[in-house]
């Protein structure tokens, strides 16, 4: 890795104040450090968030569940609160990477990175969560812009993610045998106001599927989306899988996620 300056601030404001061009926040490092090792990213400074208090932890705020940005996947999986209220999120988290990766990877790091194959974006978009930063709140629908691109401004720091609790939800993914990332991962959530379906791994960025959401709102069952599918033209085609296959998998995973949600 190329050398860089390193800071470990003790506060959110301190962290934000250090941010400038070509600096990166360091969360768990599970996405950033591999990129730096391959010279795909070469920040001049890293701002380590591990000493910033109050970025860790899971709590209930009103009707919602708030997960601190630096909360590891392992901690989310182990959380009694999340297991009781958002079991589909647990199902999502226990399949991220591998166990050692889950001991370091964080929700904030995953979302800020917005890897098209990451699992978390499907959960966040599928549940219609709110991304809380140091300066504002961003809805999930506004957050994910494109591959590795989010609505975050330069130097903006995610502090927490607030999840509404659905009536029912499910997440099912189909993973590449090599990368262990999903070729298609679908998060389905039913609320009183309707249904949300979010697909990750299959396209340049996580996306919702109105063509699934409408029929599921009327009839929340796998059969309701038996005859509809996702457009292959939008899907990724790469060494891990072709567009037609990914489109097909999105439908299969969606039906299975609905079955999971029906429990």
């Amino acid at each position: 890795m190329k050398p860089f300056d390193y800071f470990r601030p003790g506060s959110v404001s301190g962290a934000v104040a250090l941010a400038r061009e070509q600096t990166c926040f360091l969360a768990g490092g599970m996405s950033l450090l591999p990129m730096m090792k391959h010279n795909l990213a070469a920040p001049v400074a890293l701002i380590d968030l591990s000493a910033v208090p109050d970025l860790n932890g899971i709590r209930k705020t009103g009707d919602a569940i708030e997960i601190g940005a630096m909360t590891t996947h392992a901690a989310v999986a182990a959380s009694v609160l999340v297991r009781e209220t958002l079991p589909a999120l647990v199902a999502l988290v226990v399949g991220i990477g591998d166990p050692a990766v889950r001991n370091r990877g964080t929700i904030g790091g995953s979302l800020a990175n917005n890897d098209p194959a990451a699992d978390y974006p499907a959960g966040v978009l599928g549940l219609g969560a709110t991304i809380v930063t140091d300066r504002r709140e961003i809805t999930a629908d506004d957050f994910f812009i494109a591959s590795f691109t989010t609505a975050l401004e330069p130097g903006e720091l995610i502090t927490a993610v607030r999840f509404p609790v659905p009536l029912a939800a499910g997440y099912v993914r189909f993973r590449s045998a090599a990368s262990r990332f999903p070729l298609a991962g679908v998060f389905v959530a039913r609320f009183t106001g309707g249904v949300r379906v979010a697909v990750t791994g299959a396209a340049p960025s996580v996306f919702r599927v109105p063509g699934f959401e409408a029929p599921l709102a009327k009839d929340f069952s796998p059969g309701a989306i038996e005859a509809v599918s996702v457009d292959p033209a939008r899907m990724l085609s790469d060494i891990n899988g072709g567009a037609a296959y990914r489109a097909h998998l999105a439908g299969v995973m969606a039906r299975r996620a609905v079955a999971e949600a029906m429990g």
Partner: protein
Amino acid sequence: MTTELGRRQLIAMTGAGLLTSAAGGLANAAEAGTAPGNPAKMPVAMPPGDAFARNLGPLPRDVGKMITGGAIYVDDVRFDGEAVGVVVRSPHPHARIRAIDASAARGAPGVLAVLSGEDVARMAKPIACVIPPAAYGRAEALPVDRPVLAAGRVRHVGDGVAFVVAETAGQAREAAELVKVDYELLPEYVEPRAGAVGMPIWDAAPDNVAFDWQFGNPALCRDLFNRAAHTVRIHLSIPRLIPNPIEPRAAIGLHDPQSGKLTLVSNPQGVHFVRGGLTRALGLPDGELRVVSPYLGGAFGSKIYAYPEHALVLLAARMVGRPVRWTATRREAFLSDTQGRGHTTEAAMALDEDGRFLALSVHPTVDIGAYFSQLTPITATGVGAPIQGGAYRFQAIEIHVRGIFTNKVPVDAYRGAGRPEANYVLERLVDRAAAELRIDPAELRARNLPDSQTASFTAVTGLPIGGGRFLDNQRLCLERADRAGFAQRRAEAASRGRLRGFGFAHYLEANGGLQVAAAIAPGGLPHECAALKFGADGTVAVTIGTQSSGQDHARPVTLYVAETLGLAADEITVREGDSDALPIGGGTGGSKSTLTSSVAIKQAVDIVIAKARALMAQTWNVQPETVQFDRGVFSAAGSLRTVRFADLVSRYPGQLDNEGEAALHYGSSANGCHACEVEIDPETGAVEIVRYTGVDDFGRVIDAANVQGQVQGGVAMGIGQALAELAPTPEALQRPLATSNFNHALLRAPEIPAVDWVDNGLPSATNIFGAKACGESGASAAPPTVMNAIADALSAFPGARELQMPARPEDIWKVISSGGAESSARTTSA
């Protein structure tokens, strides 16, 4: 930055170092002997790699060290004052080197030297393929050996063009980025097809054909095919694979300016073979190069050869007067390690009206790569040919192998080295024949396997087969796998929406490396050497020329010495890995080490016994032939005088030490039948292996745990080959993540089932252990077993006929969704 070196100097007990320390020596005498991170300043043991560096020599395989972090791999070995080398590699598959400008690199911080292909060509020849052209059907050898650095032209992505040596790894890497190479792109050859469009890869092979090799009896085959009641054909792809041992290749070059001697510390599968290859390449006088290896972290064929990087660290060490190390990154392993397999094969079988095999015709096209690695041509031809017909009765076989140059890393031996390829073709073709003739695949095989199980016989290929329980293997396997109950399990799986399939395959091995030895020199045989040294304290040091990369070769050797000489097994240590310790050594590969070590150790022990007998004859004043020896005890015939060999050792210290060298005349034919059951999720194409059974004949099994471990490991590789593994294309190699385990799928613990293993050994009569070698069997047995099962699961889908390895979920989904079952229409939604 020298803190890394400084730290080691503080810890190290300098003294009898191989080389003088870098300037400064023990800078702070007060800190001498300080343990890292120990504020109480208590001395701790030297790191094991440092200790090895100060005392190079053969090592035992010590499990106790492996589990405590004390096993030494090349990258753990650190020499005082060492420098680090980094290879600059071509990003293009085929290009002319118009110019190399290393001036910026040479001036970069910490850089000691930069070597280009032209520099190296003055100091080294390419690394010679050791197989004479006649062995693979050529009149003359082609000048296609692997250069130490490419000069003038690069021929694959990863072909080395420069070697940058600097004080630290970081400095070497940064300087490497400053080497400017001006390339002129040339036409790329990716598919192994004869015929060049524009410049071929080698001027001497204008149509990119490396060789055209024929074997067997094509005329008789043609005749039999013409008269046959049935002809069955198959097209099979056996793509290139990445051996991917978890330990990357690494090398450290050392030069002693006083004696001129060069030492290579590396991780080859045999120190003597690599010594030979490098001695020739570097034009060294005999005895001037020593090759030493500590522990090997896996190899599977990729670490057999002398490699360019071996030569580079030696040349650089001589040039800069410092030890020079190189360790491959995983990416580099994809760009420079030899790869395996690479066959595209048309095959056909002729059968009579009763389903008896008449003739077999096999035509592989082999994707050779851009150069010959040291064994490449024989791996593609003569290694697989002997077992091409298995143990089946054929009247004739003909094999026609075409090797085609491509702009890729060379293909050479990879677990099985030609035999898994041949067995795959045979066993898939037999299943295809069973399907087309509507004969049960077990019955069809049974009809064509030899009647007599235990007698030796000769295969139609000329291979002597020392007997085997062929039909018995099948009966046991199918019973153990409960084939009889499969129909019910298939129905039950179908009720869950899953496609279940049952498949099995036989395999025959030709162990011992005899084909390779015979190819290298007419009449050649594999040789091995073992030395015995008896300590006054009752310990026995055995040194042998094999090389473990995880196998427990030592066990049968240890037990033989213990039983024969009446010694305690735990007083015997077997060491490997130093070309100075023995005059010759055969290394490990081709599942030969059990066999070659058996003849070597017998020879060494026989010499020791003869020596001891002569001493006792003298002592007892009798004729030597009247001195009897049985299980460690000498006795004088017709008297009560006896003496234990163990006591003779202390009576005659050093006098019984000896070395034995022997040739291996007889290989072994391990054989077996494996079966598996798969379940396919038709919606995703995912394959789960729900059950795997292996019945093997390894002769007399000396160490069941070791043998089972080899089977399980070989099967895991075969499953990976069938389901997931594929070497990246030249185009993919140009992108960083393709050259990694991020995109190259190695299956993990949840995906590899435990093999239900049955020992059906028929002891071999041709070696003292009674053993048949086991190391590569799983890799031969598993691919056709798994693919036959998948074919069975997908038998309702016509597209399944074309399904090739790796049968990945998307490929299986395509077979299923392209028809057979009803496909539901879906409306598209955005």
